[in-house]
């Protein structure tokens, strides 16, 4: 009987949208199967979306994930506008992209802090979250709320950029750019952190491409997957973005990719604020959207966000399918593990998405001889000794 090897990963972590419970089937040393059990925060959003009209759905879909709420609303609004054949005025599109980039900055700083906290480096966690407050203030003055900005409307945006908001965003971006340069230096030069990140969870470009990994995790392995570059939406056509990729493919490369793509966001925000197109903020939007289906893809901080919206001509959607980037990265990590030894599990799990950490890392190896219990550390130690024996 193949051993059933379960990693019970705790149900709560601030940056983790869907806390999960991992299980790996092993045959001796080699992993034969892996699966994950989500559902701790499953609220049945897709069914609820079918019971509400189009405008109410924006408020629902914004609360799928607190960290990238604007991106969910943006994807939904772009999809419904495509269905209705309406397109938001250029100024609204530019403001939407502006808020999306500000949200990417806030999400990456949050992740930087939480990943440092996971590695036990609390000072970096405190500093990263202190600097994140600058972008939260900018977002608050701009849209009225720190999280869940609900700036999106069907057919436009609610909030406008006044000169003093623009000047505050400029100041925030300048300060953050200088801090990002500092953190990039810390990530690469600090030994105690490099010790925990260099060479951890390496993923080759072929694996990344074949597994369908999304976002910064793919770009850290050299696979250029960024919807803003590949299929520009909203105002990304007028304000193009340069792709940022690394080749090492390990945990440190992911740190570097996430931080260096922030420089792109700063450049984009400045260029949007400089050439903000004039015009009104929203257009008329019919209450009933004509029947049809559409797919809208948007680049969330963690990867490609996929929306499939089907309308049957009434004022309520017939089907709203949401596939979040974390689910896709999770799925690809499960396949990356198959065929590898037990010793590789912690590296790959921690490596693929360093923000996927957990409080309860005890590992239980259930086999026919009963249950052997290891901690994450013991498992990691097992990995190190295993490789030392082979060398």
């Amino acid at each position, binding site marked *: 009987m193949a051993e059933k090897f379960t990693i019970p990963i705790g149900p709560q972590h601030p940056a983790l949208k869907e806390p999960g419970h991992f299980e790996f089937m092993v045959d001796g040393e080699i992993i034969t199967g892996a699966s994950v059990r989500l559902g701790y925060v499953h609220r049945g959003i897709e069914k609820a979306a079918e019971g509400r009209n189009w405008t109410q759905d924006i408020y629902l879909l914004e609360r799928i994930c607190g960290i990238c709420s604007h991106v969910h609303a943006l994807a939904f609004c772009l999809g419904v506008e495509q269905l209705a054949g309406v397109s938001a005025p250029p100024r609204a599109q530019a403001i939407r992209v502006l808020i999306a980039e500000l949200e990417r900055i806030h999400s990456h700083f949050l992740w930087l802090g939480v990943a*440092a*906290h*996971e*590695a*036990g*480096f*609390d*000072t*970096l966690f*405190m*500093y990263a979250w*202190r600097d994140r407050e600058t972008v939260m203030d900018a977002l608050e003055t701009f849209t009225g709320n720190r999280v869940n900005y609900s700036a999106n409307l069907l057919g436009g945006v609610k909030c406008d950029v006044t000169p003093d908001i623009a000047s505050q965003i400029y100041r925030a971006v300048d300060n953050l750019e200088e801090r990002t340069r500092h953190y990039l230096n810390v990530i690469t030069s*600090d030994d*105690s*952190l490099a*010790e*925990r990140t260099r060479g951890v969870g390496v993923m080759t470009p072929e694996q990344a491409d074949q597994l369908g990994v999304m976002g910064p995790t793919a770009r850290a392995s050299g696979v250029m997957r960024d919807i803003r570059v590949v299929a520009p939406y909203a105002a990304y056509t007028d304000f193009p973005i340069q792709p940022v990729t690394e080749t090492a493919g390990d945990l440190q490369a992911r740190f570097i990719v996430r931080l260096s793509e922030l420089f792109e966001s700063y450049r984009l925000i400045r260029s949007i604020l400089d050439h903000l197109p004039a015009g009104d903020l929203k257009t008329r939007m019919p209450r009933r959207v004509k029947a049809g289906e559409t797919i809208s893809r948007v680049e969330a901080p963690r990867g490609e966000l996929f929306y499939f919206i089907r309308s049957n001509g009434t004022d309520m959607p017939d089907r709203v399918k949401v596939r979040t980037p974390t689910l896709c990265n999770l799925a690809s990590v499960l396949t990356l593990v198959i065929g590898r030894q037990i010793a590789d599990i912690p590296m790959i799990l921690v490596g693929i998405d360093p923000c996927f*950490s*957990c*409080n*309860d*890392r*005890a590992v239980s190896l259930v086999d026919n001889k009963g249950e052997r*219990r290891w*901690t*994450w*550390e*013991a498992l*990691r*130690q097992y990995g*190190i000794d295993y490789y030392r024996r082979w060398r």
Partner: protein
Amino acid sequence: MTLLQMLIALLIFPGGLFVLVNGLAYQWARRKLIARLQNRIGPRWFQPLADTIKLMAKEQIIPDGVNALLFTGLPVLALTGALTAVLYLPIAGLPSSASFPGDLIVTLYLLSLLTICTSLVGLNSNDRFSVMGALRTLTQLFAYEAPFMLALLGPAVVARSWEISQIASSWNWLIVTQPIGFGIAMIGLMGKLELPPFDAPEAETEIVAGALTEYSGRGLALFHLARAVELVAGLTLIAAFYLGGLSNPLDYLLKTLLLLVALASIQTLLARLRITQTVGGWWRYGVLLMLAQWLVIMLGRTL
């Protein structure tokens, strides 16, 4: 020493009460310093006192499947171990209240009694985090104990005696002649107190709270007190040996606070080392450096 003097020394002045208050004050200073280094305001001056009293007043849950006597007894043992160790140290710059030749060895073992109690507590409960925390505490104990002890025996060799009061009263600034010993002693103290970067045994993001996961109420308070007393004991020991002895209370205060600042700043600068890195680091670098240091001492003695 009349019985009354001994009782006062034991319970009030250099002994129990003063060290407890001193320990709480130093814990506050450490937490405040770390908070200030992390750009935060940090706790108020009476925070450790409030924490301890609150924990004392909380309900003590004894989980089933646990030996109740051990569960309640071990924290008391840990605190008494730390408190008796303090008797041999020149607390507050005054000569130590009790001393006999060879009390350095006794103090070192009494100081590590706390770590042994923590691991026993962890092994005693059947919650997997406590067991894992206990195993990690023990592995780390074997890692830093040897170099830490060598680092503290260095000055004893120079002073040609095993008695703390004599070593302390030789007034020479050994930090100059034995810098490596001083460094290893400081880092060893951080390992003993499980301060980051050596806090793998109670890594909050990995094994919840390590060996003390099951404790609430009095047990937890006693452990925190024991750790606070051990912080004071460790600092006085290193200050007495390496910073030219402690002559008066002001001297004591200055030197121990200086060491505390060094401790806190190292703590904020480093990420948590994995248990494999700490053990590897100690045995590869700690022991070798100490042997080199001892070589120098021996040469010094023979010339």
